[in-house]
């Protein structure tokens, strides 16, 4: 298995920094790039899935309860989901304020 980038030493890198495992980009935490994060108001959600369709990072997944839930490990906070949501169920909130 590959590991997070900060755990690699130069000696361990494969020759030419070749990636030996296909699809290891899912190890990259792109979620820490964002300042705004989407917050869903389930009462307004009509389960249309537009957030899922428009998300450029494919960060939305369908939950068992039938809601599309954002995976904040990948979400870069672009806000496209909030813009596209037809009922205004998604709002972008400063991550800092959440804490």
């Amino acid at each position, binding site marked *: 298995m590959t590991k997070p*980038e*900060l755990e*690699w*030493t*130069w*000696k361990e*890198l*494969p*020759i*030419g*920094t*070749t*990636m*030996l495992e*296909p699809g290891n980009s899912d190890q*990259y935490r792109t979620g820490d790039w964002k300042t705004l994060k989407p917050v869903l108001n389930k009462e307004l959600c009509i389960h249309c899935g537009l957030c899922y369709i428009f998300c450029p990072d494919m960060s939305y997944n369908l939950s068992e309860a039938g809601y599309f839930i954002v995976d904040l490990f990948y979400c870069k906070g672009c806000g496209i989901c909030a813009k596209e949501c037809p009922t205004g169920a998604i709002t972008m909130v400063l991550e800092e304020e959440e804490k």
Partner: protein
Amino acid sequence: MGKRVGMEVSIAAAEAVKQANVDVISAYPITPQTHVVEHLSELVANGELDAEFFCVESEHSALSVCLGSSATGARSFTCTSSQGLALMSEITYIASALRLPIVMIIANRTLSAPINIWNDHSDVMSIRDCGWVQFFAENGQDVYDHVFIAYRLGEDRNVLLPVIINMDGFTLSHVIEPIELIDQEKIDQFLPPYKPVLSLHPDRPVTMGGIALPGIFTETKKAQEVAIRSSMPKILETWKAFGEMTGRYYHPIETYKAEDAETLLVTMGSFGETASAAVDKMREEGRSVGLMKIRLWRPFPFDAFKTASLNAKQLVVIDRAISVGACGPVASELKAALYEGHQRPSIYNFIAGLGGRDVAPSDFVKMVDKAEIEIEEGNKEGFEIYGVRE
């Protein structure tokens, strides 16, 4: 002993590439590299060399093709000059970082402007830091020999680096010289087929040339730096093995009548032979002058250089390129190399032979004369462009 024949150096270079049994040649024509690739395309067209010859639309593509082919494990060759190398420069950095053992001959030519098709080292100096092993050839035999040396070295599992062979444009590329051709049997023994450690193959998918974020990029560069530095013992070993096969021994720094010399001329490339003639003449006159020739430019042979310059009072360094606003790139390197020493020789730097201007043995004598006077007068780190009309 192989056959000794009179041959244009570019043709000899192409014959070497054929004997090295390359799989892929990718090139775009540019003076003065053309004879090398024209001859290779003939060899492929005539069925004398079983290789793919890619006629690409630019040098950027020429080396990009080599990246792809080398990544699949194919022995790959390209050749360029001047503006072509400048256009290719982006890919040169990628080839070394991906550790692909491509071999490239550069028929050295200056860079525009003004447009000039003739020889100097401006082109290769523009990619000085590209991470390839870089040899300079003094004559045609050096060029021919180093094709085999370059492939064996670059493809070594402990090296895996691309290699540049610098051949002075026209001064070497277009002259006919006696070349001792090596028997194919010997070449096949010296140069086994390339077996890559990692390669592009559908059975075992890998990604080459992916992204590295700030958290890991520095580690990749450290790995690359260590790789080229630690290629030095392999370079020496490869030259030794080649010497045992042919009787022609190469060294990172080669000297001529240098042991007891107070003044050392320092040259790189085809200047070496002309400067030897100048040294002979000055020795006849009883002057204490010798010659140091830099054959290996990257990795730079710091130790060999320090040893060779130990007894000299002054170095007269002849650069065939200029770092405008600083000095000659070779002189700059040598000054840095000597900084730590206690007994530093003075360095007088001439820029000579730009854009194909001839530098005759008498010119080397004049440069030594001038440098000795200047240094005696206290100008210990002089720099000038030689032979400029005032």
